[in-house]
């Protein structure tokens, strides 16, 4: 009788352990599977359409030779720190920045152009890191009222917050480019 009882509690413990283990594995597998589904969904709805867009733009630029004209304009700006600061000041200008912001399309197109100019040897690789910040001073400037509302900000906060962020960018944009410039030392040179 005694040994029988002992055996059954042992068995119970083991089955609990196995059950817990099984549930744990199931949870992880499910999370991964859901992650995969979410990723593929994101690929099809956001990433691949943008790749199609950018492929057309870049293809057009490369094929028609417009690339050379753009290179002439962009290369001097993006190949030295002074030019990058000027670029940053332009895209971060309080009136322009909300217009250039949406979907980060402008930053992404300029980024891809800078990439093609790096391949062409027109822009030195060590400019890549400061360029990230120079082409992106306007990030989110189109979205300030919505972003603040998502954080449950009151209308008066939005009224002050919009100009505060826009003005802040002209200062912090330049600081960011300079920090990135010094942080890029030793990366590709």
């Amino acid at each position, binding site marked *: 009788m005694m040994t029988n009882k002992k055996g059954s509690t042992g068995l119970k413990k083991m089955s609990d352990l196995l059950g817990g283990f099984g549930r744990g594995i199931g949870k992880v597998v499910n999370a*991964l599977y859901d992650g995969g589904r979410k990723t593929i969904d*994101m690929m099809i709805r956001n990433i691949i359409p943008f790749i199609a867009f950018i492929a057309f733009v870049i293809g057009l630029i490369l094929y028609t030779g417009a690339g050379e004209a753009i290179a002439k304009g962009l290369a001097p700006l993006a190949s030295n720190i002074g030019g990058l600061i000027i670029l940053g000041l332009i895209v971060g200008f309080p009136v322009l920045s909300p217009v250039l912001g949406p979907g980060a399309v402008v930053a992404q197109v300029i980024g891809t152009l800078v*990439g093609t100019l790096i391949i062409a040897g027109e822009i030195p690789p060590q400019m890549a890191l400061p360029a990230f910040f120079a082409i992106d001073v306007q990030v989110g400037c189109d979205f300030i009222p919505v972003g603040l509302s998502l954080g449950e900000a009151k209308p008066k906060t939005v009224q002050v917050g919009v100009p505060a962020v826009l003005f802040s960018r002209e200062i912090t944009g330049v600081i960011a480019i300079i920090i990135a410039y010094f942080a890029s030392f030793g990366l590709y040179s």
Partner: protein
Amino acid sequence: MNALANGASYFIGIFQEGGKVFVSLIGGILPTVIVLMTAVYALITLIGEEKVELWGRKASKNVITRYTIMPIIAMFFLTNPMAYTFGKFLPEKYKPAFYDSAVSFCHPITGLFPHANPGELFVYLGIATGLEKIGLPIGGLAIRYLLVGIVVIFIRGIVTEKITAFLTPRILGDGVLLDSLDEEGGEK
């Protein structure tokens, strides 16, 4: 007839060139991004929303974590644009600065964690693929982009916080502080 044929081949050439770019982008970077995003999404599910909210609340308490840890957690776990909802943990006077800080992190994070903002990957990838094509490693670049990004969002948070404090009485009238809005409640 010849001119027509030339025109046609020129026309189609544009799209052939575009197609080459398309294939190189899809084949080069997407596979890694897909697998990485899957793993990170799974991790976020396993950690759970409650813990993330608790971390966000804790990070909102002091000025340093408010513009570093808090936006990082928000962007990593909630991703763009839901990250900005973390502003609700803060008093009104810090909300513009937090938004500025968080939104400025939505591209530096994509070098290592593309799941955080998959619709805007090419700010990073546009330049990174260029470097990869000429045979340069991009791992170091991604890490530096992230680290400099953290420094920049901290500075941006502080500066915007100061500018908000400076502008408040000038826009809303003398003596008005955003602090007073915190107690009003209700009104939105």
